[in-house]
């Protein structure tokens, strides 16, 4: 078992403890019933996604500033993990909305801006996958990642800037009972730890892919058929 697998095992263990807190410790919401327990991972995943996109932002800025390959790898890793956590946020939110709002989806500001966030970073990954690896693609992706981050505060403050069906902030407004707040904070810490492990693993993958590309390219040049000399 390598160190990435050990870290993954520790993160999974933490998430299992968080699951126990969500299903065994946190009280059932009097108004919404058991479905309110979606809240703990739904909100934690959203905050983890913000953190991942902040990694893309910082990685992109550093890459544009000094051309650091490590910063570009961190940005790539952050984008992949951020899209995964945004997917969890969107799907869990839809499954929470159905029994409470009687619809899976509504085009309010919070849901729409979150979907736009997902599309921006899915587009970032598409650019990275389709473009020839190199500095041009990394520079273009860094710009997309930096400008894409503008949507993060839009998502976060959408519930206060506009009238939305999505509820406003409840954690910062002291609207949660102590047990629910403790469960949420613990789940958030575990989810952030999981996101950190994901980024470390993805960083390792990006490093190995870069090494593979760098190892293959010279061989391809050598193996490529040489043009025949003119008689």
């Amino acid at each position: 078992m390598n160190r990435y697998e050990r870290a993954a095992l520790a993160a999974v263990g933490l998430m299992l403890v968080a699951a126990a807190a969500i299903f065994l410790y946190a009280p059932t919401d009097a108004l919404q019933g058991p479905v309110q327990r979606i809240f703990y991972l739904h909100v934690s995943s959203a905050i983890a996604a913000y953190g991942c996109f902040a990694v893309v932002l910082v990685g992109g800025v550093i890459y544009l500033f000094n051309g650091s390959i490590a910063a570009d790898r961190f940005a790539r890793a952050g984008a992949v993990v951020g899209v995964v956590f945004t997917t969890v946020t969107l799907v869990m939110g839809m499954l929470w909305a159905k029994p409470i709002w009687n619809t899976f989806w509504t085009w309010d500001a919070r849901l729409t801006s979150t979907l736009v966030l997902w599309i921006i970073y899915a587009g970032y990954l598409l650019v990275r996958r389709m473009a020839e690896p190199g500095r041009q693609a990394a520079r273009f992706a860094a710009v997309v990642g930096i400008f894409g981050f503008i949507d993060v505060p839009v998502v976060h403050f959408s519930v206060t800037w506009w009238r939305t069906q999505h509820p406003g902030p409840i954690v910062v407004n002291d609207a949660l009972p102590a047990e629910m707040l403790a469960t949420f904070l613990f789940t958030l810490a575990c989810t952030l730890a999981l996101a950190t492990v994901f980024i470390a693993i993805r960083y390792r993958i990006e490093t190995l892919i870069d090494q593979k590309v760098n190892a293959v390219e010279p061989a391809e040049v050598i193996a490529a058929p040489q043009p025949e000399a003119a008689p």
Partner: protein
Amino acid sequence: MIYLVIAYAFAVALLGGFLVWSLRTIRELERIQ
């Protein structure tokens, strides 16, 4: 209740699947090297 079960089942499948796939990718790439 069914929505709660589906929501967490989806999260476990996606996050767990992503973790397993990523660890397998590391093993595969390290083996190639």
